[in-house]
């Protein structure tokens, strides 16, 4: 039997596909278990987006339009690592979020809150050689959604990561520490209790920029390689 290149997640790390409190899941979750596939070249390779040339403003969501967006300016930074603690150098990090009032720059979002002409809420950055990344953005607002009566999403930023392989692809959400809405959010709470806090950024006083912006730190951990078997 050939050994898999990438470790398989232990139980209790990811949400169950069927998480009934999140009411979109019953019709959008497979009824049959996924078939475990030995990792071939098709799974241990994956896109790096290496040929994408990023503009200087793609990581500063406050300077993408003609004026400054409204809201609380923040630094969001951290590292892209694997389970072995090794950085994922040059990892592409993609984010999207709503504005300070809790509305996405998207025609499908009809929440009764103002759009900000100076904020579209999308950013990309390539991590450095140590897996470090940094965005400048606006703290997103909470917003209501129709999952249940008086449902509100806690403030969050969506993150998309590729990592080194098809097997390591991850889309997740970053939340803010100790947000009281977390306790009521079925998407956050779809994650097993022992793993949820990993989705909360930490307030980072050291990185705060005096007279300018507060800072939050959010590390993302992707699947790591198995140890190479001894020949």
């Amino acid at each position, binding site marked *: 039997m050939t050994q898999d290149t990438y470790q398989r997640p232990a139980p209790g790390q990811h949400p169950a596909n069927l998480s009934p409190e999140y009411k979109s899941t019953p019709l959008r979750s497979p009824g049959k278990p996924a078939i475990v596939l030995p990792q071939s070249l098709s799974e241990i390779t994956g896109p790096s987006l290496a040929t994408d040339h990023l503009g200087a403003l793609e990581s500063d969501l406050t300077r993408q339009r003609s004026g400054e967006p409204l809201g609380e300016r923040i630094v969001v930074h951290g590292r892209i690592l694997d389970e072995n603690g090794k950085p994922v150098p040059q990892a592409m990090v993609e984010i999207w979020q709503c504005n300070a009032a809790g509305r996405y720059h998207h025609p499908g979002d009809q929440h009764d809150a103002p759009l900000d002409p100076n904020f579209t809420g999308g950013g990309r950055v390539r991590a450095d050689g140590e897996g470090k990344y940094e965005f400048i953005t606006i703290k997103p607002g909470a917003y209501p959604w129709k999952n249940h009566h008086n449902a509100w999403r806690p403030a969050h930023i969506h993150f998309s990561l590729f990592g080194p392989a098809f097997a390591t692809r*991850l889309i997740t959400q970053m939340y803010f520490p100790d947000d009281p809405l977390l306790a009521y959010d079925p998407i956050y709470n779809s994650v097993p209790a022992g793993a949820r806090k990993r989705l909360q950024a930490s307030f980072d006083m050291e990185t705060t920029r005096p007279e300018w912006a507060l800072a939050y730190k959010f590390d993302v951990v992707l699947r790591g390689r198995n140890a190479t078997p001894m020949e």
Partner: protein
Amino acid sequence: MSHPLTPSQTIGPFYWGTLVNTYRADMAPPDVAGERIELVLSLFDGQGALVPDGLFEIWQANSHGRYNHPDDRRNLPLDTGFEGFGRASTDAKGESHFTTVRPGRVPWPAGGMQAANINLSIFARGVLNRLATRLYFDGDPALAEDPVLKLVEPARRATLIAKRDAAGVWRLPIHIGGAHETVFFDV
């Protein structure tokens, strides 16, 4: 574990401001070698309703069967203009359209070759973990010996096999659940 995994979350409905501005539906510029194919992937929920807010991603080898990735060290031609990555959201009809090249065959770790295939990732509101599946090509004589298809019970294999329509377009419907549920893989 000193570095526990970051849990997955749904892509939600409002991703396109970032991801679709950078999408790649046309994956094969003119200088790339191989047979051009048009591919239409469609997405359905567990009751057969189309999913107009999903996102498909493609990962595939080039026409020579080489992945554009440092872990593919085989001595096969690398088309510099072909990354092998595609991304497109579903439209109002629940469809994503791609132009690419038909991939070459790639090896299987235990020996032998896989039939030509394309890896697919599926994301949508209500989908908490990336769904991974594969696309194969109807009529390919190598299907009978493909080691992945052999892991799938025969009655469900057709959910992985794209068919060519009268206009020559390869089509594969993906059903997240229900009677025609697609086979998904834990990669």
